[in-house]
């Protein structure tokens, strides 16, 4: 009995599984734009492989066996060039700062607007969420209104730029998400901001 199970196991291992013709496949890890190297796990029947190096790969052959290796950048380009080119731009977040108790941007942030708008306009169909924040001066209710006013103001600017209104949402977070943690009633320019999340 033990022998029989052993024999069954061995044949199952060799075949990976008993499920008809094998569709050959290829898997590889690429370095992310920020240089980060991730990992993927490839499983076929009892075979279990982890790829955790840049350009590390596994090939699943017609015989159902996985074979590890490394793929060249040239081969990645040849096989996946068109596919990689179709990857959407990664989501980005921009932060702009406001004058105290106002929905008016600081001069420094005003100077950055063109660069940020140009970056947003490069995307064919941006989905934008603008989140307004305040420092801890004033009541929660007041800061909820101020943060939303900041976000709405930025939303108007984006719509003026030509972004369809339905693609931009504005939200206020009041003083709940401080960039720089402070006590209550503390003036802190870095907390008076909007985050523009673009996808």
């Amino acid at each position, binding site marked *: 009995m033990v022998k029989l199970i052993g024999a069954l196991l061995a044949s199952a291992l060799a075949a990976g599984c008993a499920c008809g013709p094998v569709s050959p496949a290829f898997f590889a890890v690429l370095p992310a734009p920020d240089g980060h190297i*991730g990992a993927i796990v490839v499983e076929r029947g009892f075979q279990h492989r982890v790829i955790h190096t840049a350009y590390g790969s596994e090939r699943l052959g017609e015989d159902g066996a996985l074979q590890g290796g490394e793929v060249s950048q040239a081969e990645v380009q040849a096989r996946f060039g068109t596919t990689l080119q179709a990857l959407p731009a990664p989501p980005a977040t921009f932060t702009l700062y406001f004058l105290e108790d106002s929905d008016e941007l600081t001069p420094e942030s005003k100077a950055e607007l063109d660069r940020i708008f140009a970056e947003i306009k490069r995307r064919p169909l941006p989905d934008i969420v603008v989140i307004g924040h305040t420092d801890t001066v004033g009541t929660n209710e007041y800061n909820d209104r101020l943060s939303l006013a900041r976000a709405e103001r930025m939303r108007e600017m984006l719509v003026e730029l030509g972004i369809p209104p339905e693609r931009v949402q504005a939200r206020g977070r009041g003083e709940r998400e401080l960039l720089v943690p402070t006590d209550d009633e503390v003036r802190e320019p870095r907390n008076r901001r909007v985050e523009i999340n673009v996808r």
Partner: protein
Amino acid sequence: MRNTWMTVAFAAAAAIPAFGSDVGTVKVSNGSVAIERAGARVAAPVGTELRTSDVIVTGADGSAGITFSDNSLVSVGPDSRFAIDKYAFDTTTYAGEFQGTLSKGRLAAVSGKMVKQSPESMKIRTPSAIMGVRGTEFVVQVDEPAPARP
């Protein structure tokens, strides 16, 4: 206390859209790109909202890029077929599950917040293997099986 409740209320409100029917948006669409949904096949230009169990199908000249709600990016190359079998993402906890099947063709992907929160919550199946994603950027290709030998 009041603050706490307001935060909870906000978090709950923010989480709702994640459980809506749209899980991702077609951001790039080149050549022949279609989705199969409920038995019908329709063209999928830029802006098409995708739902669970949609299948993205590209022709010989086609390629498409999708941004999912957890910021995962997936592109499919020419002559490909990719099904979104399961997709859920909670914008508050970042917990979620993403299962897709590449039955033929090529796919490139950059994992998102879900995988960062819990590795291998994203899985890509091929006809003969399963891949779990721990991060970040990867490619997959599936070829037709060899014809049965006489």
